[in-house]
Each structure stands twice: as structure tokens, then as C-alpha cells.
């Protein structure tokens, strides 16, 4: 069994919803999710974000769905931290 403990994503999103709502929507996926969002670049219609998600066992698919539900587009996974655990 392998748990994803930390991921850093490069995301493009429209100005609305705000960065705050965006981070909240991702954090709401898991009880122990810690989200750190940085706006890297901003143009007329879009914002480029770096989103760092930390958690005990990050469900990447749900994070990806939350991003696309909010109108965001995942460009790349820039960093990943995983941890293996013995199956019981």
C-alpha cells in the first residue's frame, strides 16, 4: 500500500472562483488536507497557480475532479511525496 503524502500541482484557473474558494474546495476533500496555494501569474482572464496539498492519504483523483469542477485545468504534477506501508 502506498500513500500520497504531498503533491505540488501547476494549475490554470479562471479569475473566478477566487483563490480562496479554490483552496477551500480542495481542502474540503479530506479532513486532514492542508492546502497551500500561490498565484504565480495573472493575465486578463486566467491565473496560474501552484497548489501544494499535504495529507495523510491524498486522493489525487478527487483533487483533480475538484480542480476541473471549479473550472481549473491541471497542467502538471510538479512534486510528489509518497510513503509505503505494509499491507495488514
Amino acid at each position, binding site marked *: 500500500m502506498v500513500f500520497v503524502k504531498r503533491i505540488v500541482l501547476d494549475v490554470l484557473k479562471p479569475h473566478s*472562483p477566487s483563490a480562496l*474558494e479554490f483552496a477551500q474546495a480542495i481542502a474540503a476533500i479530506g479532513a486532514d488536507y492542508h492546502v497551500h496555494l500561490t498565484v504565480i501569474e495573472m493575465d486578463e482572464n486566467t491565473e496560474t497557480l501552484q497548489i501544494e496539498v499535504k495529507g495523510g492519504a491524498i486522493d489525487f483523483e478527487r483533487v483533480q475532479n475538484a480542480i476541473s*469542477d471549479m473550472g481549473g485545468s491541471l497542467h502538471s504534477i510538479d512534486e510528489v511525496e509518497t510513503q509505503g506501508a505494509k499491507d495488514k
Partner: protein
Amino acid sequence: MNILQHIGFLLRITGSHGIMRRYFVVNGFDGALTMLGLMLGFLLSAPTELSVVISACLGAAIALGVSGVSSAYISEGAERRRALTRLEEAMITDLQESAHGKATRWVPMLIALVNGLAPFLISMLILLPLWLAKAGLILPIAPLYAAIGMALILIFLLGVFLGQIERVSWVVSGIKTLLVALVTVVLIVLFASA
């Protein structure tokens, strides 16, 4: 997220709160002034049966409601689709399944409902004294005068609502809209008696 929070979210991401408020006031004002005009017209013409007055006003209210729904749906739908296309071009991705895509489908319907219901419901409130009189209730004043009074009160309240949005004195804002109604009354009386 419950349904109301979701609606609030869709309105927020499309910046439609202001549009909705504007439509509510503009079309609500249309409804109130139309009813006021009709009541004055009946008051200044030969005495007419209450049922005729109610039917004429109800017809106008329904037409205002349908016109409000259809015109807002068509125009807002086009605006939202255009905005979504521009956003999709900027994002270089399909947003149909995202909140923006859902907003493009739902927000025009919500705005259309507000745009249609505002004049219809305000007209119904203005017609209330006529219905009560027709149902046999004795009003302290004649039903047409009561309906005109109701129209003036609702127009004043629309002004108060505008004042709250603008964060200016609600009394001044209410009086401003009331003045518009009074100018309408004067114009109708002048033209009807000419």
C-alpha cells in the same frame, strides 16, 4: 454544498448577483407602473365592472411576466455562452462540465425567473385589493384607490431596496422612485383628460 449555496456559488462565479438585482428592480418597477397606469385609466374612464378591471390587469401582468422570462432568458443565455466561449479560449480547455459550464446553463434560467416573477408578483400584490373586494370584503376605501395606494407603496419600497443596495438614505431613494410614479400619475391624468 446545499442547493442554495450552489446557486450562490454559480451566481458569484458569473458575477450575476448585480444583474439579478437590477432585473428585479427594473422589471418590478415596470410591473408596478403598468398596473398604476391601468388603475388610473380605469379610474378616469367610465365606471367598469371589477371583474373586467381584474381580467385586464391580470392579462397585462401575465404578459409582463412571460415577456420578462423570455427576454431575459434569450439575452442572458447569449451573454453567458459568449462569456464561456471566451473563457474556454483563454483556458484552452472545454469547460462544459465545470461550474462555469453549469452556470452558463442555469444562471440564465434563474435570471429569467427573477425578471419574469418580479413584475408578475408585484402586479398580483397591486391587484390584491381588487380581488378582496370582489370576494366580498369591505375595504375602507374604494378598491381602485386601494390598488393605486398599494402600487405607490410598492414603488416606494423598490426605491428603499435600491437605497439599501446603494447604501444611501432609504427615505431619499424611496421618495425618488415615488416621484417618478407621481410624474406618471400626472401625465396619465393630463393625457386622459385632454
